[in-house]
């Protein structure tokens, strides 16, 4: 009996010593990224994560004076995994929306581009609500585009939801969906400018309604980590000011993705 209580006491004390390690000093930041959303985030043929988001993540964490560890995570579970402490921040083109703010804290935006539809060249003569009626539209599940489509066109069109944007492209070229709705830059750089996207075009206006599309993409953190949010905000401002941001932007785009 004595032995047992001794063991219990030792185990408990070890747990308590190791347990609450105090406030984190953020010497190392684990960043959750997606890896299937070109050109923002993708896996290179040699198996490395690359893209605008990835470069921004590396630059921001470096500007904080910390070390980075990238964690690839499917989009569906990207917020639950943050809350489950699999990583400390999400840098994955995540738009800042009211709904997401209920679960996570956002930094300021690090880019902002409009959403747009694409379809096969000539498939739709003139864009209108009527023209979309009865069409099948593909979208990435759990995105602002999914929400916009569900809320505005849910009754008139068939919505097909994909786990990744890459799968949506596959089904567009296979002819299983008529249109896709996604971020315009992701669509043009990740699809339209590639050989498989040559028969497709943008259709309809730039969609920027703040109710659905928010104010741009930000870095998401857990709500209790306000110190990390502050540090990341300072880091974003720093890379904007010292030209690092522009260097990364120019590597991928020939226009300003930061927005107004």
């Amino acid at each position: 009996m004595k032995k047992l209580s001794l063991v219990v006491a030792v185990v408990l004390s070890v747990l308590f010593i190791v347990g609450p390690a105090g406030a984190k000093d953020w010497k190392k930041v684990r960043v959750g990224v997606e890896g299937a959303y070109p050109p923002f985030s993708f896996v290179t043929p040699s198996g490395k994560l690359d893209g605008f988001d990835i470069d921004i993540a590396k630059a921001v964490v470096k500007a904080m004076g910390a070390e980075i560890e990238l964690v690839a995570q499917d989009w569906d579970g990207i917020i639950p995994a943050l809350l489950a402490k699999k990583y400390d921040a999400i840098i994955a083109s995540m738009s800042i929306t009211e709904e997401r703010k209920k679960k996570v804290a956002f930094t300021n935006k690090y880019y902002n581009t409009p959403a747009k539809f694409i379809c096969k060249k000539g498939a739709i003569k003139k864009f209108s609500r009527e023209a979309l009626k009865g069409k099948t539209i593909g979208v990435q599940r759990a995105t602002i585009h999914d929400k916009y489509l569900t809320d505005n066109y849910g009754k008139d069109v068939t919505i097909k939801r994909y786990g990744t944007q890459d799968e949506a492209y596959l089904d567009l070229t296979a002819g299983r969906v008529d249109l896709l709705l996604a971020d315009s830059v992701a669509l043009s750089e990740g699809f339209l400018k590639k050989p498989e996207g040559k028969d497709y075009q943008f259709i309809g206006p730039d969609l920027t309604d703040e109710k659905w599309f928010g104010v741009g993409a930000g870095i998401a953190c857990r709500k209790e980590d306000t110190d990390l949010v502050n540090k990341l905000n300072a880091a974003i401002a720093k890379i904007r000011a010292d030209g690092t941001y522009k260097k990364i932007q120019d590597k991928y785009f020939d226009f300003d993705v930061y927005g107004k």
Partner: protein
Amino acid sequence: MDFSIISGNIDIYLEGLKNTVFLVSISLVIGLSIAIPLAVLRTSKNIWVTAPIRAFVYFFRGTPLLVQIFIIYYGFGQFEALKSSFLWPFFKEAYLCALLAFTLNTAAYTTEIIRGAIVATPHGEVEAARAAGMSRMLMFRRIILPSAFRRALPAYSNEIIFMLQGSSLASVITIIDITGAARIINSRYYSPYEAFLTAAAFYLCLTFSILWVIKKLEFRWSAHLRPQETDIAEVRG
């Protein structure tokens, strides 16, 4: 924990339930009707008959169901020849692609289950049938297959349940089955716990119903092994 998001979206789950039940039951019925003749042929001594069946079973048992779904759905969609052929309306539908993958998969497993049961037929039964002058066809129909089904039932009930669980993979190709419904709810409210717990409850109810039916069936099919109650009553009488 907030289960109001589930009750508010129960129609999505019900659509998912409908899709899951249809996908699984249709693929099981077609799969079984393919598997029975294949299992009988598989016991043949002619290698030209057995080799293709062995290859089919080997492929579908040797690769994950998810890979089979991806090959049929995304893989086949890559070929222009197929896209311009009369088969494309079939392969265009995610639902039919999933049905095809599930059917072939369950057919392969079931072939092997039934073959095992046929091979395990007691020699006495076969000899008795031959002694009675039954032809090969008649013997299969009256003696070997009924007794094989009885032996195969426990293993086949496992296959039914595996198929039900496996059907959750349909959600990766945009089908809203029970898992697909849970993924939509999860992504809309970021509440994985409530969303997937509800899906689990649906699957448990389905599994429970399947087990109940199998139990009834087993009881019926083993009637000849039970003591006959009427006889006892007569003796007492």
